[in-house]
């Protein structure tokens, strides 16, 4: 059986806008010629002539938010407790690996306008359209309009969001992991801030995330290439980097097809 992978992760890089200003990743590159001096600290007397082609090692120092790049949020990101306040919310290093390798299902919400808050009915209608009966443990990926404008300044304002009811619809049916190609699982903050200014209804603030207060679930953001996936028929692998006590961990998310 032939195995085929599709990369569902964005690259972590400095020159492509992927996060709001001030929240971008920072990578300091040390290249081979520069590092000879660093290596001479370990090997006193070392000169460039001692090194193959005068080169030392390449290395980098990276400053990243746990929410930069393609990452998985842990329930702790949403609130300090989950399961209706009954339990402490787990952090990313406590994510059970078994749930991170499971069948994927894609919801095509690309036609929904930016800032729209998807409902439970929207999820149900799309599942019916693609002809998939949701199973416990399915990894549900939401393809929004944001995916096609990744890398442009409008990205962080693009795509629909998933509301509280839509999120709970999935969680109540045993879905543990969800994902989106937008910057956030919720509608873009700029759209919600406008609605907040108009309505002053606190229930709309980060409602999809905060649904994790009721039922714990794990959530991936800034996925890539979702438009290349069929609605189902593949596995998702999404093991997060193990960061002690953190609210999220970066993940190289991939789809695996057995053709």
């Amino acid at each position, binding site marked *: 059986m032939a195995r085929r992978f599709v990369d569902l992760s964005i690259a972590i890089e400095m020159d492509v806008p992927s996060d709001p200003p001030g929240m971008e990743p920072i990578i300091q590159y040390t290249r081979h010629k520069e590092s000879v001096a660093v290596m001479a600290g370990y090997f006193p007397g070392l000169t460039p002539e001692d090194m193959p082609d005068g080169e030392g090692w390449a290395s980098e120092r990276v400053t990243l938010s746990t929410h930069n790049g393609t990452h998985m949020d842990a329930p702790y990101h949403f609130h300090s407790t989950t399961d209706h306040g009954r339990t402490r919310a787990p952090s990313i290093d406590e994510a059970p690996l078994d749930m991170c390798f499971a069948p994927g299902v894609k919801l095509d919400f690309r036609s929904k306008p930016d800032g729209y808050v998807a409902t439970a009915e929207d999820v149900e209608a799309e599942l019916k359209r693609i002809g998939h009966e949701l199973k416990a443990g399915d990894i549900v990926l939401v393809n929004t309009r944001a995916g096609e404008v990744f890398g442009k300044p409008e990205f962080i304002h693009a795509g629909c969001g998933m509301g509280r009811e839509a999120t709970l619809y999935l969680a109540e049916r045993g879905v543990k992991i969800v994902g989106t190609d937008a910057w956030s699982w919720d509608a873009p903050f700029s759209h919600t801030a406008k609605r907040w200014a108009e309505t002053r209804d606190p229930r709309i603030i980060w409602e999809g995330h905060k649904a994790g207060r009721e039922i714990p679930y794990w959530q991936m953001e800034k996925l890539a290439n979702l438009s290349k996936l069929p609605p189902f028929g593949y596995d998702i692998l999404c093991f997060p980097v193990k960061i002690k006590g953190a609210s999220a961990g*970066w993940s190289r998310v991939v789809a695996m097809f057995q053709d």
Partner: protein
Amino acid sequence: MRLIDITRPLDPRDIDKLPPERRANAATMVPTIEYIRPKVEGVAAMCGHFGCKPEDLPLGEGWGAERLHINTHMGTHVDAPLHYGSMCEGKPARTISDISLDELYVDGLVLDLRGKVKGGEGIPTDVLKSAIAAHPGSISKGCAVMLRTGQEDHPLGTPGFFNYPGMTREGTLFLASMGAKILGTDALGWDRPFPVMKRVFAETGDRSQIWDGHFAGRDAEVFIIQQLHNLKSLPTHGFKVGFFPLSLAQCSASPARAVAFVN
């Protein structure tokens, strides 16, 4: 199928386990994490984004988040050929974001070298050869060979952690010549410990003693994985292993969540 985690976590508290003489180099080994907690810093952060007040947030809580300062070679991580030099096998060296996913999900094989290798010394090629000869599995092209060196008995915080057995140029090229593409170790580093290489260089002036295990990867393209964890939980062979690193643009390495898939 069972999934077995073979990853060493990124834990800022490791700083307390470093011996004093290593603290100056902590930035290459231990992450610094600024924690933004839901009940404290997260409240202000969230109110800033939404223009709301703390009392508008459910139960007065914001979000949890973190900012990390890491080196790309921290925790369980995958080295790209770029780490060893700008050229590899006569071609521009591949960076971590250039490696295809197929090359990182492969057959796994554990070579148990416990009791046959010594801390602070190079792993003799003869030891590798006899371990492979006695092994019930075999090295397939493109597979991952993971060395169980005995370092599991010397965790961070014990003196033996930094005095690990290391791979030389000869041993590295030998494993590559057998067809292995991913070379892993449960030790802190692939090479012999730096103080050992430093002493030999100071005594002999022999430049070929410097970082020779890694530099061998300029001549035979391999991906080196360091700081594997929990190899004792793996079978000797007959399983898949996945080392999907972060797609850090043009970087020489990346942390990965390394997972074995055992039937």
